[in-house]
C-alpha cells in the first residue's frame, strides 16, 4: 500500500455521495460509500450489484450518486464493469475517448460477491480487466430481511438460520473470499474496515492506481444495525472491535506478497488480541452463544491466524 493520505488533514474534502438516501441510521455501508466516492474522485464509472446500497440509494426517480452509475442485475456487476472497461479501451484506441483516465469501479455486497456474483467476479479477474471491485461485507442479505449468505459467520442468527435447541444459528463457516481472489493471482487485493478510515482510503487509492495492471479487489467490513442487532450508535465501535479481536484482520496482497497492516500486524501473537467475547457480546445475533460455542469460534480463529501467519512468511 502506498501512503497517499498521511494524516486526517489530507483526506479529500469534496462530498460526492448525496445525503437523503434511505440507508438506515448508523449504516456501516453508508460510511464506506462516502469514503469510496470521495477517494475515487469524480472521473470514475460505478457499476453496482443489487443489494442494500443499490436499493436504498436509487429510489426512482432519484439517485444519491454523483458519478456515472449503472445497475443491471444481481449476478453480473463484474461482467457489466468488464464491458464498460473494454468499451473505454476500444474508444481510446480509436481516439474517441476524451474524458482522460476514467476508472471503473464495482460496488457489490456480500450476496452479490460471495454467492450470486461469484462466477462473474471470477471471470472478470481471469480476463484481467482493469477494474476495482469493492465488496462491502455486512454478512447477510440485509435488505430482503436478513437471510444467511456465504459470508454469514458460524452460529450467527439470521431469519433463515433461526436459533433453537437443534440448530444454533448458521451451521457452516464463513467463506474465505480473499483466498478465492488471491488464487486468481490479481495484482492487488486487500481488506479494510470502516473503523480505520486512513487505512481504508489509502487502500482504495492504491487499488485504484493498480487497475492499470489488472483487476484489484477490496473487502470492506461494514456492520449492519438491524441485521446484527446492536444499538445504532455502535457501528464504528463494532467494526473497530472486529479488527482488535482479530475477527477481521487487515491485510493486503500486493503482487504475491501478503502483508498485515496495523493494528493487525501485532495480532499474530494471540495475547495482543482482545478476547473475541468483547466483539460477540455487543451483537444480538450472537446473544444465544454458550461458552463452548465461543471457544469453538476462538479455536477456528486461531487456526485462521496460523494460516495467515504462514501466508505472510511466503
Amino acid at each position, binding site marked *: 500500500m502506498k501512503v497517499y493520505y498521511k494524516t486526517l488533514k489530507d483526506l479529500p474534502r469534496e462530498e460526492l455521495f448525496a445525503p*437523503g438516501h434511505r440507508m438506515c441510521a448508523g449504516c456501516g455501508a453508508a460510511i464506506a460509500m*462516502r469514503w469510496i466516492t470521495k477517494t475515487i474522485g469524480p472521473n470514475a464509472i460505478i457499476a453496482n450489484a443489487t443489494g442494500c446500497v443499490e436499493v436504498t440509494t436509487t429510489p426512482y426517480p432519484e439517485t444519491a450518486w454523483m458519478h456515472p452509475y449503472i445497475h443491471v442485475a444481481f449476478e453480473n456487476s463484474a461482467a457489466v464493469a468488464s464491458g464498460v472497461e473494454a468499451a473505454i479501451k476500444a474508444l481510446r484506441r480509436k481516439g474517441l475517448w476524451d474524458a482522460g483516465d476514467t476508472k471503473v469501479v464495482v460496488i457489490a455486497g456480500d450476496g452479490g460477491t460471495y454467492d450470486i456474483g461469484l462466477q462473474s467476479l471470477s471471470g472478470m479477474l481471469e480476463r484481467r480487466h482493469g477494474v476495482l471491485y469493492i465488496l462491502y461485507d455486512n454478512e447477510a442479505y440485509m435488505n430482503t430481511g436478513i437471510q444467511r449468505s456465504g459470508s454469514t459467520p458460524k452460529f450467527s442468527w439470521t431469519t433463515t438460520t433461526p436459533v433453537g435447541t437443534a440448530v444454533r444459528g448458521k451451521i457452516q463457516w464463513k467463506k474465505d473470499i480473499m483466498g478465492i481472489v488471491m488464487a486468481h493471482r490479481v495484482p492487488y487485493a486487500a481488506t479494510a474496515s*470502516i473503523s480505520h478510515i486512513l487505512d481504508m482510503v489509502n487502500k482504495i487509492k492504491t487499488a485504484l492506481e493498480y487497475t492499470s495492471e489488472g483487476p484489484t479487489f477490496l473487502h470492506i467490513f461494514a456492520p449492519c444495525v438491524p441485521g446484527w442487532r446492536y444499538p*445504532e450508535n455502535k457501528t464504528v465501535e463494532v467494526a473497530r472491535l472486529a479488527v482488535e479481536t482479530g475477527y477481521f484482520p487487515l491485510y493486503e496482497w500486493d503482487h504475491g506478497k501478503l502483508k498485515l497492516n496495523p493494528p493487525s500486524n501485532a495480532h499474530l501473537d494471540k495475547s495482543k488480541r482482545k478476547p473475541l467475547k468483547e466483539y460477540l457480546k455487543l451483537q444480538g445475533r450472537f446473544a444465544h452463544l454458550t461458552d463452548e460455542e465461543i471457544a469453538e469460534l476462538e479455536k477456528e480463529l486461531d487456526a485462521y491466524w496460523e494460516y495467515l501467519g504462514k501466508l505472510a512468511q511466503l
Partner: protein
Amino acid sequence: MTLPTATELPIGAVVTEPGSTRRNITAGWRALRPVIHDDRCVRCQLCWMYCPEGTIVELKGVFKVGNRTYDTKYEINYDYCKGCGICANECPTKAIEMVPE
C-alpha cells in the same frame, strides 16, 4: 411532491439529475438530536469522518473559543441527520450530546 407522468420520464429508467436524493429530507427519522458543544470540541474530525450521511459540515475561518483559536469549526446539517449518534459515541471529549427532539 408531484411525480412526472409516464410520458415525461426518460426512456430506460435513466436518472439524469445527479445527487437528487437531496430532495428527500430525512430529518423526520430522528428521535435524538446531536448538539456540538464548541467549547469542548478539539477539532479531531472524527465526527466528520464517521458520519454516514456526511451531515457534519466543516467551516473554514478563524474561530475563537475561550482563549484558543481554531481554523475550523464543525456544524451539523439537521436537514439530513438521521440521529444515529455515531458522532456522540466516537467523540473523544464527549463534546456532542444527544438531546431528545
